[in-house]
């Protein structure tokens, strides 16, 4: 059996390479597109977006006090406050998807209960620093903003829906217990609040102004004035950043910060660039063709119809996206004719859910609650896609 299989593989490989349609433009061009996508990302996004984004993510991880945030998700917290904290805390508590599920499970079983746990689970993947920065930078600030606001708002709505649908069960089931935080050591931090704010501001400021988009011709507003001087503004923020590092930081805290930034980069970059490559190969740069014909994408998720939005939500819910790879994939899809509405629908349903994480969620809250959650996500993503698509 095994020998037969080997033989078949060799024959298959032979036939594949023998008939490789190398002369065909339709076949050759997607490989060019894949490399062109990598080229664009390397030139435009690595220095001005990715590196600052990793530095910010590392700083959040190293200098923000996660344990203080966790306190507000405990069993004794005021419920209204718990929903609020759960919906926004993803930005401080998580960077990659593998840390979200333990937090979700902990909030459900030992903390504030089902509603806040669901709110956290839903918003977490969409509002961490890397996701927001990359979405806004590559897909445009409107979609970036819509994604962040949508994720926070809908996380509370979905959380509340879950709470009231399963109200009786929740009342019987008393979530209780204590979070274990381990040996807590005070993070070395000798700066006051204002200094910390300036530190984050200097990194964000650089990124915002370095990437300031060119205004439309004839636009004489503040926007184009800023564009004219964006280089000076960006350099100004870099100088502020360097000043802060030299005068306010000790070496012992710089090293762990750079190390955690480096760890995030190591963890996320390989998959991200693989995503960029395949997005280019299958979908092509915006306006160009990849292996999948554009008209095929446009007929499925073009425009802003109910079907397009619904289809995008379903696909998003079941597909797995490695951290931040949703961004180049969306870029490819939008370039191939996906509408703005379905794009938001996919962004709202996509990173929050995938088939593998549905299975883990099911092991924590059971089948009925998981099915309800998945349905709510798909319904809300579809509706918000339609609304957003009709606005822009």
């Amino acid at each position, binding site marked *: 059996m095994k020998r037969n299989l080997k033989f078949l593989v060799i024959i298959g490989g032979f036939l594949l390479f023998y008939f490789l349609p190398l002369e065909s433009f339709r076949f050759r061009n997607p490989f060019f597109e894949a490399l062109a996508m990598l080229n664009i990302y390397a030139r435009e996004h690595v220095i001005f977006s990715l590196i600052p984004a990793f530095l910010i993510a590392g700083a959040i991880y190293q200098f923000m006090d*996660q344990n203080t945030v*966790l306190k507000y998700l405990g069993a004794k917290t005021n419920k209204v406050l718990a929903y609020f904290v759960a919906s926004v805390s993803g930005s401080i*508590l998580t960077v*990659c998807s*593998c*840390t979200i*599920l*333990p*937090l979700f*499970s*902990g*909030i459900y*079983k*030992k903390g504030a209960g089902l509603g806040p746990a669901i709110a956290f689970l839903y918003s977490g993947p969409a509002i961490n620093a890397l996701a927001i920065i990359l979405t806004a930078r590559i897909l445009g600030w409107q979609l970036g903003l819509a994604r962040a606001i949508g994720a926070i708002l809908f996380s509370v709505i979905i959380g509340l829906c879950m709470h009231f649908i399963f109200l009786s069960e929740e009342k019987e089931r008393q979530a209780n*217990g*204590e*979070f*274990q*935080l*381990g*040996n807590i050591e005070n993070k070395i931090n000798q700066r006051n609040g204002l200094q910390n704010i300036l530190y984050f501001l200097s990194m964000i400021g650089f990124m915002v102004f370095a990437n300031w988009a060119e205004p439309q011709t004839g636009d004489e507003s503040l926007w184009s004035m800023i564009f004219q001087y964006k280089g000076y503004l960006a350099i100004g923020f870099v100088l502020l950043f360097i000043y802060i590092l030299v005068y306010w930081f000790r070496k012992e805290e710089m090293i762990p910060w750079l190390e955690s930034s480096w*760890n995030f980069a*190591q*963890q996320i970059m390989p998959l991200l660039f693989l995503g960029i490559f395949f997005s280019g190969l299958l979908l092509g740069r915006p306006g160009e063709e990849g292996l999948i014909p554009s008209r095929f994408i446009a007929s499925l998720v073009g425009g802003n119809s109910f079907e397009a939005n619904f289809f995008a939500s379903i696909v998003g819910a079941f597909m797995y996206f490695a951290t931040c790879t949703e961004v180049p994939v969306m870029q490819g899809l939008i370039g191939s004719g996906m509408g703005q509405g379905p794009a938001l629908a996919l962004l709202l349903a996509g990173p929050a859910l995938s088939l593998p994480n549905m299975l*883990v969620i099911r*092991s*924590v809250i059971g089948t009925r609650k998981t099915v309800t959650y998945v349905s709510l996500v798909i319904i809300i993503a579809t509706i918000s896609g339609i609304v957003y698509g009709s606005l822009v």
Partner: protein
Amino acid sequence: MKIEVLGMGCPKCKKLFQNAQQAVEKSGIQAEVIKVEDLNKITDYGVMMTPALVLDGKVKATGKIPNVQEIVNWIKEKTQ
């Protein structure tokens, strides 16, 4: 002694697992190092931030990777 490394298979958890193994070797004390990847078991310990390190049922560190020397110190504290 039982040392458990809690985490669902992220790169940081692997690093912590290696550190724990090295610490056991370095300390010369008999101990087994186990990976715990089951989410429900992780939550049973009350751990929110992974990776986490548990020594004989007691949570020692969460959300960060203690270095080899730190883990050696904890092992020695326990055996005294």
